């Protein structure tokens, strides 16, 4: 058993999930079974292998440049309403479970 009940509670906390007791028991079983399977990656020696985070750095980049300058095509001017107009407040708030005319409303954060 790699993952313990304590781990499940800790990870649920990090993920902002509460989980019922039954769900926690299920997680304990499933995470252990999946991680056992995942363990086969340790059969491979990867000490000299660089990690790969994305595919995008292989195509369309300017090979003559260094670092983020290689992605010149992906950058743009940092200007207000450059590519698209900002949403009007009413539209931006339309999907909010709770809002007034200008703001999203949430339960009180600061105790006093």
């Amino acid at each position, binding site marked *: 058993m790699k993952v313990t009940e304590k781990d499940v509670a800790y990870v649920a906390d990090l993920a902002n999930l509460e989980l019922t007791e039954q769900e926690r028991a299920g997680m304990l079983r499933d*995470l252990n079974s999946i991680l056992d399977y995942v363990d086969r990656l340790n059969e491979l020696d990867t000490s000299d292998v660089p990690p*790969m985070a994305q595919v995008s750095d292989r195509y369309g980049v300017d090979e003559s440049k260094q670092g983020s300058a290689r*992605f010149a095509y992906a950058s743009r001017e940092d200007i207000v309403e450059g*590519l698209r107009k900002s949403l009007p407040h009413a539209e931006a708030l339309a999907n909010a*479970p709770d809002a007034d005319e200008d703001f999203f409303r949430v339960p009180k954060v600061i105790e006093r």
Partner: protein
Amino acid sequence: MELTSLTIDAARAAVQERKTTAFALAEAHYARIQQEDGQIGAFLTLSKDRALEQADRIDRMAAEGKPLPPLGGVPVGIKDVMSTRGLRTTAGSKILENYVPPYDCTAVARMEAAGAVVLGKMNCDEFAMGSSNENSAYRPVRNPRDLNRVPGGSSGGSAAAVAADMAVVTLGSDTGGSIRQPASFCGVVGLMPTYGRVSRYGLIAFASSLDHIGPLAKSVKDAAIVLRTIAGRDPMDSTSAEVPVPDYVAELDKPVRGMKLGVAKEYFGEGLDDVVRQAVESAIDKMRTLGCEIVPVSLPHTPYAIPTYYLIATAEASANLARYDGVRYSHRARGVKTLSEMYRRSRDEGFGAEVKRRIMLGTYALSAGYYDAYYLKAQKVRTLLTRDFDEAFRKVDAIVTPTSPTAAFRLGEKSNDPLAMYLADIYTVTADLAGIPGISIPCGETKEKLPIGLQILGKHFDEATILRLAYAYEQASKSHSAASS
């Protein structure tokens, strides 16, 4: 003329030549949906007003004798992970049950600009996480060929709707096989383009380094037409690549003689159903008779693809799904007193079991003390898997494999065993990890008349080659079945 069995070109031509109208095409598809979808469950939301308004616009163009755009009047469906302005978009999840996006996904906007008529939003596994469509928070989708079987996932609604003539083409998304595997299970064509080929602006994110948008279609040519429509750089998505888009349709009937096709033994090992093996092997024989040279290649790290995928995809998902907090949109639990309680209870109530499982696995793999052992390790193996393809593509133009180890399985067959379900993606996840394009085309049936899929994988940004090979195979099997019937 049977209005619900047309290809894109036939439908567009019929509207252009005033043999029918876009309005009649849309109505015929809605009638078909009315008749069939009660038992299949492919649609989550219908967008009749939007569809008929667009149909009307196309019909006026045709009446004025203006040339119609490439998808003029063609009824399509959009997987419900793509945002549609003013049209509910749920991602198959209760947490977005009432979400109405304020903007359109670029791929959808390009389809509509090309004249497509959006009939509605397609059912899918919640947040595109699943291989059977049983993880939809609304209802499972059933396979039109056999209602006791799954259509595959996660683009199950998109595949089933095309198979059941409820749409001419649909858009799906593929993160680990979610276009190709359901295409295979439902007997349609499914194309996952290269990573960066199609903008994901407006696609509800699952795993950002793996998510792709692509078509599910009745023919290879239809898939090529849709790709030509949606491909290309979009300034709204910084991962969309600055690589020219060829005319995929014009390239289709270029000869395939002399092309080199790789066959990797790792894709024909344990777990592959015998009937699927036979169908794929005879498809490979057919490619040989078309003049292709069959070349053995090795992709030695293949057995490590599923564990690599499930670490990377879940890690990215755990970050992407953190945004569902019940503040700006998405479900909010009632009667909560503190902000933290609001986050937790809203997410607890809004997410389904598989989504929670993946958020937990991904959070664990990224957490202090486990990051190197799991997430970083997976990223390194991802490099090895990609190098396998680089090596193979030095020798061959494309690689042919089965799409899925089995034909469609029964509802409930794997739903209690997450690991067994993950293995349904064993032949598809590697292409997502490497970012290369892949297509699934029908290549036969089992005794029970369940479709089998042939997968063709290509080099980065070389969709033209896999489409051309798929087209040659499709045409050859068509003339074969015409000759034998």
